[in-house]
């Protein structure tokens, strides 16, 4: 699977600037969200001029008058267009499939983690005669939707699955802990899914955090209200995963002999133990795990 970013994360940003932000984050490609007023004829040129790798197009509503221009755009850029399954403006799926096929494009019906919905979309898909030009986009909303049916949904839609859209991830990752994203993505990986996972903000209220996340690789931009900490205390819950180890090893390095560093984390601290074991001389530290989540863990490291 490839992790990509939706332009919904940074509305109004120039595509090439967003491309640079993606590179900084190691993300592969961009989903372009099209607004009702966009000049579709000029969009293909705008994308080519930006040099970004596009993975998909997106509209929140498919207006009947826009079907043909959107189909042509999808064909010209060789990327699928996704639309929520109930926002296709009344045009039947076989009709849509034919029009996208004629333009060399493809259309993806967006479905939630809802088995009944997926089965009904799948039944419609099977009525169309152009399987290459239609498929499903799985829209995963860990913040507002139970993911308990995820395994069954994956089983039902996998042969038609062309795109995954995750409402969250990025700076919202921590609040989505414990919602079942881990097992879901493991199942998705094991199913052999090799397409894109597009990250998109769960709500417009999250946009400032996405802006900060994209602008800085160092800051999670959480702005949380954790109280200031005493000496030899380290709360790394707001630190990005990639920076956590160096912060802990740095704090351990600065610790006087005999002192104890108390660490607060949002995951099992066992990996911190292994990081210390790998990087510090044998017998130079004592490690104690306190508590067992599921939201907060603590660990104490004493320099011997």
């Amino acid at each position: 699977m490839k992790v990509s970013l939706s332009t919904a994360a940074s509305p109004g940003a120039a595509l090439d600037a967003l491309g640079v932000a993606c590179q900084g984050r190691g993300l592969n490609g961009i989903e372009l969200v099209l607004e009702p007023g966009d000049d579709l004829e000029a969009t293909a040129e705008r994308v080519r001029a930006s040099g970004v790798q596009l993975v998909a197009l997106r509209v929140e509503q498919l207006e009947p008058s826009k079907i043909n221009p959107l189909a042509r755009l999808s064909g010209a850029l060789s990327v699928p267009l996704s639309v929520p399954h109930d926002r296709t403006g009344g045009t039947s799926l076989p009709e849509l499939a034919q029009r996208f096929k004629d333009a060399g494009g493809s259309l993806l019906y967006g479905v939630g983690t809802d088995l009944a919905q997926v089965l009904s979309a799948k039944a419609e898909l099977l009525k169309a005669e152009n399987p290459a030009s239609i498929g499903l986009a799985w829209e995963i909303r860990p913040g507002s939707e139970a993911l308990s049916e995820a395994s069954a949904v994956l089983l039902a839609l996998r042969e038609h699955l062309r795109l995954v859209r995750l409402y969250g991830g990025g700076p919202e990752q921590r609040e989505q802990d414990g919602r079942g994203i881990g097992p879901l993505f493991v199942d998705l990986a094991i199913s052999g899914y090799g397409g894109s996972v597009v990250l998109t903000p769960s709500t417009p209220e999250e946009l400032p955090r996405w802006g900060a996340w994209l602008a800085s690789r160092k800051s999670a931009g959480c702005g949380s209200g954790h109280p200031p900490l005493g000496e030899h205390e380290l709360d790394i819950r707001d630190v990005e995963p990639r920076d956590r180890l160096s912060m802990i090893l740095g704090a351990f390095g600065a610790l006087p002999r005999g002192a104890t560093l108390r660490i607060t984390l949002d995951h099992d601290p066992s990996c911190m133990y292994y990081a210390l074991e790998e990087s510090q001389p044998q017998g130079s530290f004592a490690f104690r795990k306190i508590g067992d989540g599921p939201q907060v863990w603590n660990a104490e490291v004493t320099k011997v």
Partner: protein
Amino acid sequence: MAEIDLDVRVIPPGEKHPAIFRAFDALSAGEAFTLINDHDPFPLRRQFEAMRAGQFEWTYTEKGPVVWRVRIAKNKS
């Protein structure tokens, strides 16, 4: 069997390591998956050594600076 790519950058912190072990445990002997992450997962390797000793092969296929990729294979018993 298709290549299995598990990009753990989309998995929240508390679910990352359980997810990785879940993926490994789901492999048959001789199969592998590629772990993709935004930092060097060397502590995880230690954890594998402690919890799945002798059962895995660990091969870096990309070592940063932005993305790390490790192919984790399950040994034939």
